[in-house]
């Protein structure tokens, strides 16, 4: 009797185990499925729409077929260059502070926390704040304000990866430099930072890739432009912005362009993310130190 009960119980337990395993596998499939759908659809739609004109022509007036996004690609380049000029030095600097000078201090703890908070601020809010800060009646919408918004968004990522990479550099390296009479600042810049540079560079690329696809803060800072413009004080086109505009347009040909733009953007981002993963998993740092 008792053994029968036990038998039943262990059967139920086994069944529960099997069901749980099945559910976990099912949810993994359900998560991977949309990813494959998105990529499949994107490559299918994007590859059939991508041509040379896309990279060399500026947009045609609405309703006409043809044209490309050359101005948006260049515009994205300009905005991202401004963003990198602002975000990367400040990010690396604060990363160096966290790893080299502030270890264990209250200030560093607070900076780390604030950086994480900044990372969580919605990008649209960043756009609103930068609009209020930079966009004035004298300079309405501009490439500069778009660059500032994206630059601020790069800082937390760059800062935290720099810190992590610097922490991986062994102390012996620093002490060896100091022991040779090298001033501390030189030791930090040409020994520690240089040793960690592959990691820091990939961190910057990660931040770059992330803001490259940002649309929300650009809607009312860079604003978009249907013509050629590389002026810093005038509205400028950007790739994600054009994708957004074209996706909501009623014309079939603009949808085609949106898909092509999305494919270009995603290739850029996947390359950056894969590179980051390659560098961090292969432990380039260990070899360098």
């Amino acid at each position, binding site marked *: 009797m008792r053994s029968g009960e036990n038998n039943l119980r262990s059967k139920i337990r086994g069944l529960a185990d099997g069901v749980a395993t099945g559910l976990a596998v099912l949810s993994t499939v359900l998560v991977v499925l949309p990813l494959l759908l998105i990529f499949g659809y994107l490559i299918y739609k994007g590859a059939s729409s991508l041509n040379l004109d896309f990279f060399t022509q500026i947009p045609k007036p609405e309703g006409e077929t043809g044209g490309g996004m050359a101005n948006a690609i260049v515009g994205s380049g300009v905005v991202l260059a401004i963003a990198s000029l602002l975000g990367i030095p400040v990010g690396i600097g604060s990363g160096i502070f966290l790893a080299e*000078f502030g270890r264990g201090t209250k200030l560093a703890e607070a900076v780390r926390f604030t950086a994480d908070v900044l990372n969580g601020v919605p990008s649209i809010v960043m756009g609103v704040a930068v609009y209020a800060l930079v966009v004035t009646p004298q300079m309405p919408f501009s490439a500069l304000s778009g660059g500032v918004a994206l630059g601020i968004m790069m800082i937390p990522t760059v800062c935290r990866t720099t810190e992590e990479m610097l922490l991986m550099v062994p102390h012996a390296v620093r002490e060896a430099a100091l022991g040779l009479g090298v001033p501390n600042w030189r030791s930090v810049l040409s020994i520690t930072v240089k040793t960690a540079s592959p990691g820091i560079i990939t961190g910057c690329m990660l931040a770059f890739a992330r803001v490259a696809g*940002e649309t929300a803060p650009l809607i009312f800072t860079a604003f978009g432009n249907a013509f050629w413009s590389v002026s810093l004080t005038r509205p400028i086109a950007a790739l994600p912005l054009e994708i957004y505009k074209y*996706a909501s347009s009623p014309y079939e040909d603009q949808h085609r362009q949106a898909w092509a733009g999305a494919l270009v953007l995603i290739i850029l981002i996947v390359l950056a993310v894969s590179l980051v993963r390659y560098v961090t998993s292969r432990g380039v740092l260990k070899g360098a130190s």
Partner: protein
Amino acid sequence: MNANVSEIRIPQVQLQPEPGSPDGKRPPKSEASEVRRYLLSRGNSAIADRGFRWLMVLCALSIFGIVVLIATELVKGSHLSWTKFGLDFFFKSFIDPDTKQPSYWDPVNEHFSALPFLYGTLVSSFLALLMAVPLAIGVAVFLTEMCPAVLRGPLAFLTELLAAIPSVIYGLWAMFMLVPLMRQYVNPLAIKLLGWTGFFDDSNPTGLGFLTAGVILAIMILPIISSLTREVMNAVPHSQREAVLALGATRWEMIQMAVLRNARIGIVGAIILGLGRALGETMAVTMVIGNSLDIQRSILSNGNSMASVIANQYAEASSDLHLSALTEIGLALFIVTIIVNALARLLVWAVTRGAPARVN
């Protein structure tokens, strides 16, 4: 023999990771050795050193500066709307003088209330969490406890990629694939099966709306929740698992008793972090939520979230008050996401014991 020993020892010393830091443990408080302190105190190039140090401190302080700047700009920008509407902005509707109907957002008569957008943000985020949380935990359990080692790397990479796709591309995909899917199959089915609850009605045949926004949001926050959940599950010591298994538990019982119970605070933190992301998510939601300015009970109806109304109207705001009202919504979003993120970080930190958790 002697030479051999030194040859072995040198690489060992070089490869030795510095104590404490690489494994994610907190670095020891004062790790500068006597030698280093002596060298630092010698005073040559002290000015350059001090200058360099201050430059780095300045960079770090600028992060505070940026957050403060964002806050002050938002407060300044929303002052006009705040003085006119006060707290009613978030809670009350207005009576339209022409139609005598309650209305919320009327740029022509300059009446603004953020109530429908608060509602839209809450509904779409809640739907997203409802779908994403069980899936994310399932994936995390599968990857940490069940997955064959061969699959683990590629699957983790795939979920990481999901996090790297820009929001606008999710929106594009949703507009052309998810929306038709919802319009033709999911929504009619939901109306047929659940129409009696009153939350599903067929007044909106477009396929846009809260539910569609919830689905795309769920896909977007999944990787964040699952990667953090994995992180806290990995932080559960192996001895716990072994102890439960040794008592004769099945794998699922082991996961329940040893892993999920120990990691639960961290998992809650991960969910809250996902919520923070969902609340502020803009582009994909803007593209599929349908942009209506009313409150409707059906989750198949069009709506608007706080972020999407800013994205839609900010660049074309008709008056200063309109702009100010939109800025106030931005300020509310800023405060809410800060609170949500801080809370989530604290919870995750509590479990992973000081190893700073990173989103991605």
